[in-house]
């Protein structure tokens, strides 16, 4: 199962990033998809097959785990682990820096145009 199933762990794909963020609080699989849509104002929609692939993968990598398996309605709930938390925190910072780099480059370019 977990062969070829390891995640490139230093950088998260956009989808993996959003899934980890959504599991900062325990959620069902489908709760996670609607939460991401809500969080991003509909800008990011994760497809069910993408969500399933990444839930399995993040579970295999110990970034998330089954919080509890509600025997009554048979829905599985997932939550983030410490490892997952560290990873997504770093990723949030990295992406913030990237956005800053963008701002810096835009400002520099605009100032340059104004002076020239």
């Amino acid at each position: 199962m977990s062969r070829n199933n390891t995640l490139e762990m230093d950088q998260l794909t956009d989808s993996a990033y959003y899934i980890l963020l959504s599991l900062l609080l325990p959620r069902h699989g489908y709760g996670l998809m609607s939460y991401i849509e809500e969080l991003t104002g509909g800008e990011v929609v994760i497809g069910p097959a993408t969500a399933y692939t990444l839930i399995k993968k993040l579970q295999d990598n110990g970034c998330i785990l089954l919080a509890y398996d509600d025997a009554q309605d048979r829905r599985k709930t997932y939550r983030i682990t410490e490892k997952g938390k560290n990873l997504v925190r770093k990723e949030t910072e990295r992406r913030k820096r990237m956005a800053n780099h963008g701002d810096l480059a835009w400002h520099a370019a605009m100032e340059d145009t104004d002076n020239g």
Partner: protein
Amino acid sequence: MGKHTKYISSGGLAFTERGDMRKLSRLSAKGWHLEAFAFLGYRLRKGEPRALEYVVDYHRVAPDEMDDYVGLFKAGGWTKVCSIGADIHIFSAVPGTKPIYSDKETNLEKYRRSVRNLQPLLLFPLVTILLFVIRYIANEFDAPRFLGQSLQVIGTLGIVLSVPILMTYAASRLRLRRAS
């Protein structure tokens, strides 16, 4: 069989996944809806004409995980129609439903899994080659005739099985490369 059921052939999912799914859509528009996989094709059932899209997913889903898996798709607007074993699943949805894979990376992994599912079958061509090697050696050493003949029969059977296996495997590798 009756008038309410009909069978259509498949080009083989590894070869004609998209074509098959489009064909199923066209048939649904005429009131023939996919009901199940059948030998080398699909079984359809007569109903009201509906606009439906079909997609295939490859995931090994354990029985106790099926509810979760199908539930996710349900939330995304996709209804499971049928499966082959635990690995191949077809879903349908009304046109305009968002795709089941929303990024390239995970979509690629779908095709990687389909290649991996086929790998155990490569044992057939491997054993077949081995049989022919043994037969060759047996001939060289004047082994009893019946041995050579049985090896010939089993080997021929092996080829009959190996050709479609190798073609399917090659097609699924090609599909993965195209998706990459």
